């Protein structure tokens, strides 16, 4: 239940503005790939191209290839909705649906798509997803309470449960811990460790320690200046990246000399 993605020569535009230029990257299945870099360097933008989420912004477009198991995600006959069913996403701020209960939030991928599901199957899916997101024990007695009644860290894990309930191949995480306290962050990081047994995970983070802790491979994005496009500077195994990076810019960023 996990797939590799090969990205070649990917450019991302907002209208005429080239935001990210010439990305080549391979994302390995059943591993965690971290994307680091200073603010505004295009790592979130790049992440959103992997499930065609950036297309919801008017004027945004992509050139180049992103191939998931032999299928180009940007081939003309591919429906972005289908891509998003295979490539799930967790956002920076927890965003449970405020009108839904905890259980309904987990089932959102099923219910919003008007798919019928038996009561037993629904209960099973809720328990499995919440257990997968390390949240089951905390919420099993109040599944009918609104999702917004949870704490921030719990809400974020609820969003992860919601994402894995549709059983995607790949899970994208856009700074999933930046709005959370250290304890909730630890909970999410442990969860990422477990999830990589089943999923391909790509995580954007501002926190280099976090990248070092959770990821197998790390990609460093950088930008030369405002108005210039962001680029993938270097990508390697995380241990190599943090011990002996090939590029000077990577070393400067990782050692805290800028950014």
């Amino acid at each position, binding site marked *: 239940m996990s797939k590799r993605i090969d990205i070649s020569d990917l450019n991302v535009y907002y209208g005429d503005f080239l935001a990210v230029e010439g990305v080549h990257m391979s994302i390995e299945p059943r591993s965690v790939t971290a994307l680091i870099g200073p603010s505004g360097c295009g790592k979130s933008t790049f992440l959103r191209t992997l499930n065609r*989420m950036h297309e919801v912004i008017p004027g945004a477009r992509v050139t180049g290839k992103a191939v998931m198991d032999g299928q180009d995600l940007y081939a003309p006959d591919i429906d972005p909705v289908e891509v998003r069913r295979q490539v799930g996403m967790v956002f920076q701020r927890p965003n*449970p*649906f*405020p*009108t839904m209960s905890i259980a309904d939030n987990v089932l959102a*991928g099923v219910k*919003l798509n008007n798919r019928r599901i038996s009561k037993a199957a629904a209960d099973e899916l809720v328990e499995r997803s919440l257990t997968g997101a390390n949240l089951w024990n905390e919420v099993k007695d109040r599944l009918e309470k609104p999702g917004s009644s949870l704490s921030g860290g719990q809400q974020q894990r609820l969003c992860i449960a*919601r994402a894995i309930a549709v059983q995607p191949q790949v899970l994208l995480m856009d700074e999933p811990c930046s709005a959370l306290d250290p304890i909730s962050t630890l909970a999410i990081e442990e969860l990422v460790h477990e999830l990589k047994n089943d999923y391909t995970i790509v995580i954007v983070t501002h926190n280099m320690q976090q990248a070092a802790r959770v990821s197998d491979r790390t990609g460093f994005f950088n930008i030369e200046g405002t108005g210039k496009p962001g680029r993938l500077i270097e990508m390697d195994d995380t241990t190599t990246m943090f011990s002996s990076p090939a590029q000077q810019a990577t070393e400067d960023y990782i050692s805290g000399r800028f950014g």
Partner: protein
Amino acid sequence: MSVLAPPLPVRRSRKLARWAPYAVLAGSAAFSAGLLALLTTVTIAGLFALTAVSYAVAITTLSRVVEGPRWAKDRLATALVTLAFLLALIPLVSLLAIVVGDGLGGFSWDFLSTDMVGVFGSMTSGGALHAIIGTVYVTGIASLVSIPLGIFTAIYLVEYGQGRLKRGITLLVDVMTGIPSIVAGLFAYTVFLVLFGPAYKSALIGGVALAVLMTPVVIRSVEEMLRLVPNELREASYALGVPKWLTVVKVVLRTSVAGITTGVMIAIARVIGETAPLLMTVGIAQNVNWDAFDGRIATLPVFVYRQYAQGGVAADRAWAGALTLIIIVMLLNLIARLVSRYFAPKGAR
């Protein structure tokens, strides 16, 4: 000889007693009444205005002397804000008081359950049943047309529209919001004149006239409500592989349904009391007309206008009719509130 002034205290050293503002208010009222009695005559409006001014002056001065300049400004601002609130309440309260006071006399079950057939001169019988039915018909037709039309237009504007078409529609909606109601009446009248000839009169024409007035109001309020739905929720839905139309129906509309209900109720309240276009399109009737598509039909605003114009005992029926109208609007608002409470997003906010 001069003594160096001590530095101004930062803390409020002395504080006016809790009852002091009320005492000052009573004092200003007594002072104003006395002054007015001495110079001219005491009227409520004059007393109110003079009391307000003298209270503001007195409390500010007193507070400045006792408490200090910053607290004096606070007292002044409090006085002004309270005054503004009271001024805004005056029309509302006096309108309600007059309508309830004058309307309750003629208001009864008989009034609600009879029409005006066979009521002449100074007879005190008769009622507004025919007008209530007419108002329900006309407003119902207008709602049937403008609520779906308005909601779909707003969805287009917020979720789908881009570029020129969107700007054009927004401009047209703005212009439509400002149409005088008599023009809407003329429009509906002319349309049906062309299509069905001069003999045709029915609740339908009035419904169309009101729909012209109501649609832009619905569009505007629903548009505002849809814009309030955070983009994060749309993105969360897309990221689950939910198509756009289902996202709009099940996330955007579902999240904003409480606000949309309120907006629609405001739009209904806006048109339910329209008189001019109805006078022109549906005419005046004395009897109950159960057919919305044929024949003249009475409506509450026209009924009120008509009865008041007759004067005498009929004026009592006018006030009772006005009270009925207000009660209907209140009931609609109550329903809207219940719906809002039931559908509103729950949990910690």
